[in-house]
């Protein structure tokens, strides 16, 4: 019997030598689908990675893949419109991967854009979400908060049909957040930290420093720790943006300035002077005492799935997390991480506590169990079950209305 084909349409058409979050997700999904008997084909223009068995490439240069109504089409919502459009109108069982609902992240970037540009961007993203939510036979989210956020947007300002869609979106949604690959080599990596801090409790900020984050409470906490004579230090893994002129360099500079003002730069706060390839992060994870994260009280934190916490789980490390995000809240409930309020004194107290080996060992004993429950095989299981059980081909689709397409294209 012919294997059922899954066409994967990633947002980037290049799979380079170094894989980041979205590409890792893509490869793990492809692998898991292939292991479950699907013929997986990724639409790419270039691939520099060995692909798992059962996964092949459809060269983008060859045009639109010849999908049939029996095929499964896995779509990233942020595909360029010229690629998205035919998929919305084409045949097949469409699965829309909303695992990262981008909108909340944009919120904090508004000052970087003129208000009009921001409004147009926002409208375009909502139109994409609406089209895909309508067209998709299954939708993937990372957590219920993301589904509720998108449903809230769909239910507002909408036609009766879209309100019904908002209400029933849960019925065709599954939760497949990012997972971890326990095959990665998490021990025996050389210690990459500067000599001067290797004997101190190192708290690792293990991902980017993004414009929507507020690190002041964390830095002030380390100011307090310095004043109290603590040897705990904070290490930013991404302290050297690849492009110093990019908008992403601004928050790094802000951290450097604040740490300098507090007199803790290079005594208790260290910014990695070099960019770290993805695989090299394992050494930093292995040799830190714990991770640290500071969630601002924003809707972005409320809807996010913090993959940097997953890295810590992979390496058996616990974390101190200030403020709320869904993954940390789950882990705190199971006793795997230390959760605290977004307050410098509270954060300092939590870091002091986790600096003690006994307390850390207790938390790490729960991390092992938590890491198993976040393995890719388990996080992707709902997708495999969904495709196996409910892939009835829906009604023919006509795609978005012309008026909606015009609203997308016209920038006002």
């Amino acid at each position, binding site marked *: 019997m012919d294997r059922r084909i899954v066409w994967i349409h990633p947002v980037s058409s290049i799979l380079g030598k170094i894989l980041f979050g979205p590409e890792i997700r893509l490869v793990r999904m492809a692998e898991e689908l292939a292991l479950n008997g699907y013929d997986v084909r990724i639409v790419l223009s270039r691939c520099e990675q060995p692909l798992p068995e059962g996964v092949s490439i459809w060269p983008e240069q060859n045009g639109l893949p010849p999908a049939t109504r029996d095929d499964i089409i896995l779509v990233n919502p942020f595909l360029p419109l010229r690629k998205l459009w035919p998929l919305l109108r084409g045949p097949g069982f469409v699965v829309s991967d909303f695992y990262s609902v981008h909108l909340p992240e944009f919120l904090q970037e*508004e000052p970087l854009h003129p208000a009009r540009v921001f409004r147009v961007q*926002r409208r375009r993203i909502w139109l994409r979400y609406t089209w895909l939510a309508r067209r998709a036979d299954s939708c993937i989210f990372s957590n219920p908060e993301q589904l509720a*956020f998108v449903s809230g947007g769909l239910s*507002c300002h909408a036609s009766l049909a879209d309100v019904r869609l*908002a209400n029933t979106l849960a019925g065709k949604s599954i939760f497949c957040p990012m997972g971890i690959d326990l095959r990665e080599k998490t021990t025996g990596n050389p210690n990459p930290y500067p000599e001067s801090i290797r004997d101190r409790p190192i708290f690792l900020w293990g991902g980017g420093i993004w414009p929507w984050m507020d690190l002041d409470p964390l830095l002030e906490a380390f100011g307090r720790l310095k004043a109290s004579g603590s040897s705990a230090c904070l290490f930013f893994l991404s302290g050297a943006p690849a492009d110093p002129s990019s908008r992403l360099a601004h928050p790094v500079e802000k951290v450097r300035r604040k740490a300098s003002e507090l007199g803790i730069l290079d005594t208790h706060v260290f910014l990695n002077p070099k960019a770290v390839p993805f695989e090299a992060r394992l050494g930093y994870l292995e040799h830190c005492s714990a991770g640290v994260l500071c969630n601002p009280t924003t809707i972005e934190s*409320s809807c996010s799935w913090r993959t940097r916490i997953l890295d810590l789980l992979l390496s058996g490390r616990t974390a101190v997390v200030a403020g709320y995000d869904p993954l940390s809240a789950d882990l705190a409930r199971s006793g795997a991480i230390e959760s605290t309020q977004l307050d410098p004194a509270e954060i300092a107290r939590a870091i002091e506590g986790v600096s003690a080996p006994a307390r850390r060992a207790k938390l790490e004993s729960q991390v092992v169990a938590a890491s198993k429950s976040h393995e890719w095989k388990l996080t992707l299981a709902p997708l495999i079950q969904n495709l196996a059980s409910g892939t009835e081909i829906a009604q023919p689709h006509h795609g978005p209305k012309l008026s909606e397409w015009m609203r997308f294209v016209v920038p006002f």
Partner: protein
Amino acid sequence: MKLWIVGRGELSSAKRLGPSIRLLAFAKLADELGIRPVIVVDKVEPDAFPGIELLALEQFDWNMVDAQDKIVATPHLPWRLLFPLLRGTRNFDVDSHGIGALEGMESGHGTASWRLFQGRRRTALRLRLLLHACEKIYLSIPEQLAFLGGCLFRESRAEDVELASRLPEKALYAPMGVNSDPFPSNPPSVWPHEFGRRPIFLWGGGIWSWFDIPTLLQAFSHLADQGSPAILYFLAGKNPSGLSNQDAPVRLAREEAQRRGLLGKNVFFHDSSASPDSLPSYLAGCHAGILANPAKLESLASWRTRLLDLLWAGKPAVVSGDDPLSRRMADAGCAIVVPTGDALALAKAVQTLVDDSELWLRSAQASRDLATRLGWSTTLASVKAHWSSPVRPAPRSPVHLIPILRCLAGF
């Protein structure tokens, strides 16, 4: 100092539904903090609750509230009260623990679509006005916050987007809690003699249009075919809301049970609605609770208070479909949750809880354990901290007239 809790509905010793239980919990908390509570709702029974001042909405106006008093308002205040509240400078909190807009999404059969659209817009705009103006909003779960965030974000104004982003700063999670009174030790039996020792699965609240009753009845049809002794008992055999437009779900459930030949066999309805005083008897005598959620937004963002009653009584639950409290109960080991719409799985879960007495004992213990973690003192902890805070916010700016007029017009 007084706490004015201004809402809708009826408060009497005889009729204690979820919303009034909540108002009383707020009043009790205020009393503990040395704040004199005053509850203002549509209809009150004077002196029904000693220590709590009760006032009818028609007798109330904002001039009765002193500058230092605290105000908690519910989103559905009449415009006579909402308008001066929004246009004034008093600080107030909003209690929106159940976002009614979700439940109303599917209702309105036979109503013109433009009326539905207008009704929804009015609800959304009212929430928007309140979110802008309030100091804090009390919600039950993060999913409700995310829903409101999405609603606001979809609005086109920059101030709405800013508010959407910062909404968690205004939110306090204060879900309904487990009854703080100890569960009565030996409540009198209320079950019909004919039930004998058959295990009863209790549907412990109203039968509303947003529940998945067909799956539930299909499951009990399977159980009947298998010769299972399990009984399904609907505690509210009549529409408890008193609103005639919500009669249909009860009638349809009864008709469906009749059509399947289950009525009086393994599916039973209470003659009318059980009184609050008799609730412990029904809970004590049931084997477990049962609930069927459809895969809808309402289930995703609801906090099912009927499950809290089961926790109070130390009873497990069997649930089809997901809702946040069921998920929490499943994690704690006191509920079996099966996929939405899967009648066979639901029937199997019911039978497992009938056959496996050790599982039942473990689940019942887990239910009692979770109840201790979900008491009112825990669920209202953030509200308590907020009310106790010595920090007094500065008077806010009045809401502009134009958005209020837009809300009234519904566009």
